[in-house]
């Protein structure tokens, strides 16, 4: 089938402002959008720039705005996009070139919530045990691949780029609700200020954007509850 692909292009060394570029591409219905982008880059316009690595929905590098929604290009099939597909870089990030966005601030915010095990007791000497029930509590958060789709879909981030954003809160949740971790109070303290969880307006764009189907908004709400009513008990 023949599909019209509209791509928002921008090369800061050449263009004063972004513009729409159009390509007509012959695709198979079961091609992924990433295959279509590859076809364009390899056979039509070699200057088209985008990130991709594993191409199987695991590395999270090809998150982009497809028909107005943040998706991974490698998880979208051409038969699902219609006769015309619109591709843009994700909103809420500065654009480096074409579909490549600057994720430095995203990772700065991710690091700010201390996404690693914090313990105050002596090391146990054996492995740190946990029951399947305790593991299940924070299971959703462990699925995050840091693609940035949720953060780039969030109107609160569009309005205020200083906000910590949904992806960071999901990863904070993953440790706050981990029975082996003892940094819960520390992280809740970080997230209880103005640029913490309170800028979330429960819009649910993040949950729609997540390619791993993480219920992002629910996890943020759980962190809000933990701040007000107290978090889970520590090990």
């Amino acid at each position, binding site marked *: 089938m023949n599909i019209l692909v509209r791509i928002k292009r921008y090369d800061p060394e050449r263009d004063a402002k972004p513009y729409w570029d159009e390509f007509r591409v012959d695709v198979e219905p079961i091609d992924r959008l990433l295959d279509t982008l590859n076809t364009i880059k390899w056979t039509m316009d070699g200057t088209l720039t985008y990130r991709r690595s594993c191409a199987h929905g695991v590395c999270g590098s090809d998150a982009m705005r497809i028909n107005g929604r943040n998706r991974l290009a490698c998880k979208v099939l051409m038969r699902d996009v219609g006769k015309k597909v619109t591709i843009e870089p994700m909103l809420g990030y500065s654009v480096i070139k074409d579909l490549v966005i600057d994720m430095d601030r995203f990772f700065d915010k991710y690091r700010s919530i201390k996404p690693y095990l914090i313990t105050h007791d002596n090391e146990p000497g054996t492995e740190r045990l946990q029951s399947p029930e305790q593991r*299940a*509590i924070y299971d959703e958060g462990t699925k995050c691949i840091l693609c940035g789709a949720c953060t780039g879909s969030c109107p*609160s981030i569009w*309005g*205020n780029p200083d906000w910590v954003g949904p992806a960071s809160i999901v990863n904070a949740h993953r440790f706050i*609700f981990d029975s082996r971790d003892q940094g*819960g*109070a520390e992280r*809740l*303290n970080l*997230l*209880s*200020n*103005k640029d*913490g969880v*309170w*800028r979330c307006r429960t819009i649910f764009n993040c949950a729609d954007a997540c390619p791993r189907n993480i219920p992002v908004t*629910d996890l943020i*709400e*759980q962190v*809000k*509850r*933990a*701040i*007000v*009513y*107290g*978090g*889970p*008990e*520590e090990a």
Partner: protein
Amino acid sequence: MLRISTGRGPRPAMGSNFETFSWYYFRVSGAVLLIMVLVHLFIMHVSNDVSCTTYAFVAARYSNIFWRVFDWLLLTLALTHGMNGLRIFIDDYVRKPGARMWLMSIAALLLLVFFMLGTITLITFQPVTSALGAQCLPR
């Protein structure tokens, strides 16, 4: 799976946490406002004829301290709830420091002025007999 907090685990250091208080206050004041506004709406527009809500009606109503307290609570909750919302709008969408300062100051000033105006009126209101006019008192 939604996990309801046990309430015994860690929580952030309280006391200096205005934003957490602000969020919680929104929820509580919103719920209370919903009830109070409906009661207010019912009294002013359903149980009484609108043409009857005259000076005399207000005077009769304010002879009971309960309605003064009710109206003062409604005023306080609506003002603080609304202005807190305005503060968050400004915080989210106004990025220039100068404009933020001005808008925040105006919002705070409006809050103060309306609160004082309403409170003074509610405390000092005394019916002027000559102004009562025709009787159209609530049933």
